[in-house]
């Protein structure tokens, strides 16, 4: 993907609401497409969670299982939406009808489209490429390859790019709305929703660190995995949400919506798994793996919510009227993340270790929880990574706030 950055867009004073861009209202179809993308990406998120529960409880008897159908139809619809929008914007660019270097990017020397559609479309392509490879990997290595398998990670990277594209698209639409003198609240709310989906995705990505891989071995030292991963993956998105949205409680809002979504989905999906498995005539892999709501399932989003509240509070307590430096913000959040994530990790690992012998399918076992030393060693790693992560998030927030493309 070759994208040419043209001078003159981000960071410059927004152009006045004149010219073909304002006259023709060219942003209306991207807005509709942007909402459609958010809907399809939400659908993919539901499909992903359903798929994980389906895997655990029922297994995987074919590629197009019901959760895969939900997940991949969302990917296909997102991809088609992006393709249509890229072609539409390119045609408008060639006709000189409002699409120019100030509000879109030239891609591969052929196309002109808003950055968000390009990134989301590329993400969908990556997921589509990962799907058959994932199926192949399962054929070779079985059902219980963890989420951290090569082609699962490939698909998750694609999903991450796709949702990141949505965040770019909506933040650019917010900039355009501001330039046109309109209230950008709807665009900002949509940006917040995209960022919520992103936080959900990275929290999901860290999930195997809770129980399956409780420690990382660094030579003779063992370090607890989960706090380190969350410290690297979460703060940058929460800090970016603050920067992009400009709301005092932006991080809390994003994390709160994630928490509500997590609770609702974790309460409803077990019933869906039970009824669809019964309709398909598929037995559960083990009675101990029958789907039910467990408090541990929402522990990660509770952790993120508490950390987001703290982040907003620390950021609000400005020292001498000056904005807190992101590295300080990140380090203080890293400390809290370490504590909460370590607690969540220990609770989940202890609950999993209590499963009766023979409750799990043959070949699966639960490693013991991290030792006290491993938890302690995770502290400096978590603080350092959270500080770096918050610095990255500060930059992303700035881009999302200013980039009109």
């Amino acid at each position, binding site marked *: *993907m070759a*994208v040419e*950055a043209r*001078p003159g867009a*981000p*960071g*410059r004073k927004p152009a006045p609401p004149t010219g073909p861009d304002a006259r023709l209202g060219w942003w209306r179809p991207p807005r509709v497409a942007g909402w459609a993308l958010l809907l399809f990406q939400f659908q993919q998120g539901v499909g992903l969670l359903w798929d994980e529960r389906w895997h655990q409880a*029922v*297994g*995987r*008897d*074919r*590629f197009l299982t019901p959760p895969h159908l939900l997940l991949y139809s969302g990917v296909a619809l997102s991809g088609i939406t992006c393709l249509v929008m890229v072609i539409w914007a390119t045609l408008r660019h060639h006709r000189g009808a409002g699409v120019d270097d100030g509000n879109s990017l030239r891609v591969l020397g052929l196309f002109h489209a808003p950055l968000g559609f390009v*990134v989301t479309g*590329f993400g969908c392509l*990556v997921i589509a490429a*990962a799907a058959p*490879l994932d*199926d*192949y*990997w*399962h*054929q*070779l*290595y*079985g*059902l*219980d390859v963890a989420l951290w*398998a*090569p*082609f*699962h*990670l*490939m698909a998750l*990277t*694609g999903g*991450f*790019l796709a949702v990141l594209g949505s965040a770019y698209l909506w933040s650019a639409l917010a900039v355009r709305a501001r330039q046109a003198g309109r209230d950008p609240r709807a665009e900002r709310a949509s940006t917040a929703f995209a960022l919520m989906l992103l936080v959900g995705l990275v929290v999901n990505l860290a999930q195997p660190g809770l129980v399956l891989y409780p420690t990382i071995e660094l030579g003779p030292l063992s370090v607890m995995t989960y706090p380190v991963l969350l410290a690297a993956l979460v703060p940058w998105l929460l800090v970016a949400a603050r920067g992009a949205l400009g709301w005092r409680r932006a991080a809390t809002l994003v994390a709160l919506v994630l928490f509500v979504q997590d609770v609702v989905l974790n309460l409803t999906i077990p019933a869906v798994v039970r009824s669809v498995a019964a309709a*398909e*005539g*598929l*037995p559960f*892999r083990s009675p101990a793996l029958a789907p039910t709501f467990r408090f541990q399932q929402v522990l990660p989003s509770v952790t993120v919510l508490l950390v987001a509240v703290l982040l907003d509070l620390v950021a609000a307590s400005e020292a001498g009227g000056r904005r807190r430096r992101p590295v300080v913000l990140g380090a203080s959040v890293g400390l809290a993340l370490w504590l909460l994530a370590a607690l969540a990790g220990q609770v989940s690992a202890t609950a999993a270790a209590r499963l009766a012998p023979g409750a799990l*399918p*043959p*070949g699966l076992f639960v490693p013991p929880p991290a030792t006290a030393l491993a938890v302690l060693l995770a502290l400096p790693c978590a603080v350092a990574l959270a500080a770096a992560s918050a610095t*990255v998030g500060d*930059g*992303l927030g*700035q*881009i999302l706030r*200013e*980039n009109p493309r």
Partner: protein
Amino acid sequence: MSAGPTGRRGAVLAAVLLALVLPAARPGQAVAADVERRAGPYQLAVDVPAAPRTGRALPVAVRVDLDGRPLEGATVTVQGFPGLGTSASAIRPLVLTPDPAAPGRYRGALTIPIHGGWLLDLQVSGAGGLHRAEVPLLVGAPAAIPHWLGWVIGLSPLLAVAWFAWWNRTLLRREGDGEGSAAGTAR
């Protein structure tokens, strides 16, 4: 008569192509001789491929006899269960359809998703009641790529992420320069 270098190269190429194509075509096509099973009063003759492979349709045909005669109007269901050591889950049940060309014969196609040992559970419901029998099956895997290659391919999109992060960084820098020059002008 001796072949020239071009002819020899062509022969080698043809041999290589054949070697590549033949093993791929072989699995899943040979049909085993009937596997005989008894399910209560029913005599079953089960046809399954001799060397089935994952991800391909696995044709299954069952001839059901009751008291030495082909049984028509029965319901024959087949379901795959992973054998010991196979990391997989049960496949949803498939109801076989009667073969119009052969009375008492029922057929259908399963897809086995993961390689290893499997048990086909056959359920016959008809005039002799509901009875079942099992047929073991060994399902082959596709050609394996090395683990490291899987990881290289799987993580390759991270290059795009890294490039995008770098591109964003240049955007931020330009923005910083823009602000600096704007401040200079204002002063």
